[in-house]
């Protein structure tokens, strides 16, 4: 399908700021396109304009034209448009409307007024194509995040559209599920020759497989072209969007886009990479978890898990969705009943209530919006102090300054950016001066810039002696920030130790590590690589 976007300008309702600013793009028939950009760069708005949801569903003012195979999208009949372009959203929870898998897929087809036999055929074929026929009459609530996302894709595919748009489809998935989604998207594109447009912040998974890359900034097109063209650009901002291994190739002086990882590896093999020295942390034990067992009714979620965390140490807890990682965190803070013992600074805390533990242990959940109930940033932190009957509010200013959000003190938390909200949530977790900080996916759904800010904040806190235990699916982030790694599968910690744990992994390591681990240990990120290389240049 040919998609021709000409001079599109768009304002959301009641907004004077252009969300899309003079967009001109052309996607060829059967192209696999990646749209990248920071949060708020209007990537999603652009794809919603392609589906017609902008402005038909959202309202607002639009000018310009989007032609789909020569027809103006705004003039195409709604029913025909649905059959032409389908979309999969970021959060699988929120896009699935029915209870049963086959009903979910049938829902869209019923809207196209297809007959029963055709609907049945499309349901089975799309499930078969996505490799999930066994889920046919499963209750959607019982599926994992990855399975739900596959059902959403099967549902989109059942329309037999000419274009499928995936809006951050892997941002909430573990690396294994994310790879499965990538493979389905590739298969849809290659075998069915359907245009696939992916919107993503974490580009590395998709970059190798796409035909075209679009980078957006402030509602404008910063770059549009092939990945080979993007590789040749020397614009620092664009280089930031390259996957780490491609940055490595560029840094190594490759003149054209590498065909595969082996090409990069060959050059690396001829380079001397210096060993990266890691800061040695103190080995004073802060937290000891001994033989932790957690059961949800008949399901054993955590099976006899033991580990220690030292003062000032950052520990990353990695593993697939449903492995029991969040359960471990919730047990430490006392939100779940468990067997075994938890010792903090030599004192058993098993009998302590959540409120007592919260005086020493900070806990940060996945969604920073969950921490917003008051009218100002200051009041938000004061609320927590008041609940603990602490009258000394001077700490509020200290924490806000420490996290560099003091200037936002009197702002309404709802008006903060994603990164600022995340730091406010972090401030909430720090307001009682905890000794241990538990973070559940602190980088979920946030862009590279904000991630960098959080990384710095966490390193600062660790340097001040606070121990941090964090759950993340972002291996690059974990490998850059953490001192210790624990890998968890099926309720058990299967490996624990320093970065050597990741060197030994198939999935739970970074692309750069896969390229360099035979040559030199401890290189996981582009920053590490540059450090190792420059040490010898």
């Amino acid at each position, binding site marked *: 399908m040919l998609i021709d976007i000409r001079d599109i300008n768009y304002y959301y309702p009641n907004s004077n700021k252009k969300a899309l600013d003079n967009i001109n793009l052309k996607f060829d028939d059967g192209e696999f396109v990646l749209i990248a950009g920071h949060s708020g760069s209007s990537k999603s708005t652009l794809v919603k304009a392609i*589906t017609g*949801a902008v402005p*038909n*569903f959202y309202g607002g003012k639009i000018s310009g034209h989007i032609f789909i195979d020569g027809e103006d999208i705004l003039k195409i*009949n*709604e*029913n025909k*448009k*649905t*059959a032409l372009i*389908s*979309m999969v*959203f970021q*959060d699988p*929870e*929120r*896009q*699935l*409307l*029915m*209870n*049963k898998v086959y*009903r979910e897929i*049938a*829902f*869209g*087809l*019923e*809207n*196209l*007024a*297809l*007959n*029963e036999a055709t*609907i*049945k055929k499309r349901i089975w074929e799309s499930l078969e194509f996505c490799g999930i026929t066994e889920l046919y*009459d499963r209750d959607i*609530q019982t599926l994992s995040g990855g399975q739900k996302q596959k059902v959403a894709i099967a*549902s989109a595919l059942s329309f037999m559209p000419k274009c499928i748009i995936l809006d951050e489809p892997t941002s909430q998935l573990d690396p294994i599920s994310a790879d499965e989604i990538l493979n389905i998207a590739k298969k849809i594109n290659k075998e069915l020759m359907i245009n696939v447009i992916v919107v993503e912040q974490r580009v590395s998974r998709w970059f190798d497989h796409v035909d075209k890359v679009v980078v957006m900034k402030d509602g404008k097109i910063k770059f549009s072209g092939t990945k080979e063209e993007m590789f040749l650009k020397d614009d620092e901002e664009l280089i930031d969007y390259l996957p780490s291994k491609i940055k490595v190739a560029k840094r190594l002086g490759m003149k054209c886009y590498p065909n595969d990882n082996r090409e990069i590896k060959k050059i690396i093999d001829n380079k001397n990479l210096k060993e990266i020295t890691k800061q040695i942390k103190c080995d004073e034990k802060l937290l000891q978890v001994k033989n932790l067992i957690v059961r949800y009714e008949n399901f054993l979620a955590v099976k006899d898990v033991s580990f220690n965390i030292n003062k000032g140490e950052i520990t990353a807890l990695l593993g697939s969705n449903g492995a029991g990682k969040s359960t471990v965190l*919730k047990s430490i*803070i006392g*939100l779940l009943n468990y067997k075994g013992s938890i010792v903090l600074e030599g004192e058993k805390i098993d009998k302590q209530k*959540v*409120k007592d533990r*919260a005086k020493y242990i900070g*806990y940060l*959940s996945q969604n920073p*919006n*969950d*921490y*917003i*109930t008051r009218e100002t940033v200051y009041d938000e932190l004061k*609320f*927590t102090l*008041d*609940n*603990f009957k602490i009258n000394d509010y001077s700490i509020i200013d200290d924490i806000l300054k420490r996290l560099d959000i003091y200037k936002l003190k009197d702002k309404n938390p709802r008006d903060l950016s994603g990164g600022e909200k995340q730091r406010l949530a972090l401030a*909430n977790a720090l307001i009682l001066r905890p000794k241990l900080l538990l973070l559940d996916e602190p980088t979920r759904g946030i862009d590279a810039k904000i991630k960098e800010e959080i990384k710095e904040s966490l390193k600062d806190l660790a340097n001040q002696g606070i121990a941090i235990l964090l759950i993340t699916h972002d291996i690059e982030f974990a490998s850059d920030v953490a001192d210790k790694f624990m890998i968890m599968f099926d309720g058990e910690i299967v490996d624990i130790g320093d970065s050597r744990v990741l060197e030994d992994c198939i999935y739970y390591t970074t692309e750069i590590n896969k390229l360099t681990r035979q040559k030199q240990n401890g290189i996981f990120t582009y920053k590490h690589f540059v450090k190792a290389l420059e040490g010898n240049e």
Partner: protein
Amino acid sequence: MAKKGLHVSVLSIYALIIMTMAFLTQDPIVLVGLLLTEILLLTSLKKLNVVKTTLKIFWPLLLITILINLFFTSAGVYVLFSVFNKPITLENIIYSSLFGIKLLVVIYIFYIIETLIDSDSAVSYFSSKMPKTTLLFMVCFKLIPNMRKKLRDLKDIYTVRGVDFESKSRFERIKAQIPLLMVVIEEALESSFDIAESAYTKGFLTGKRTAFMNRKLKFMDFIITIGCVMTFAAFIVLKFLGMLDYNVYENYTYNLRISSIGIMLSIICITVLIYLNYKESSYAY
């Protein structure tokens, strides 16, 4: 899935007449009959836990109704005892009990609907008949479990933030919920928008719609529908003729009437037919 059970529209009609009758009558035999029929049906459907849990709520509900009733009226002649110098009359208790039964009948019918009707089939069927109303219901049905899950998560977060949800004071416990409700309301607004957007991208409300696995009305569906309609028509006629009237404040005594027993028996027969045609592990569709 084997094509067993009853048509979704038949069960909807059944639920609707039970609810309407409960709202329109004060006749003790009809109301108690409706309640007992529902309890028997729920028990047969292995939902005894629902009956037990709801009965636990019934007694405080009855007490509150009596107290509220007491506040507004002191009518009735048969004084049982006094509370704060206010006479509690037998009429007052009978009236409150009948009101409580009405509420239970309505609550139970929702559980029966939930058990007998597959919501997916209902959405599929009613979307082709009244799509906008169905979308509204779909948003609500989808939203409620999401909000329940969100509230659970938020309770964890706010417990860590020092909010006391287990205070001995009921006022404090209610006050503790306020910050959570603010987050949940914001979340609910966003979530309903997402649901509507997802429905929009799937072409909902764009034109004519078909219903997948739409079951044709069968003989038993017609029998039950006719039974429901005739019972309801008889109920309305009898009500109009004053043969189902009962005003406890005028005369608390009650004479057994053939009209009330007739209506009760009809409902029992229809319910038995529904149960016999309901197959476990299959839904109405």
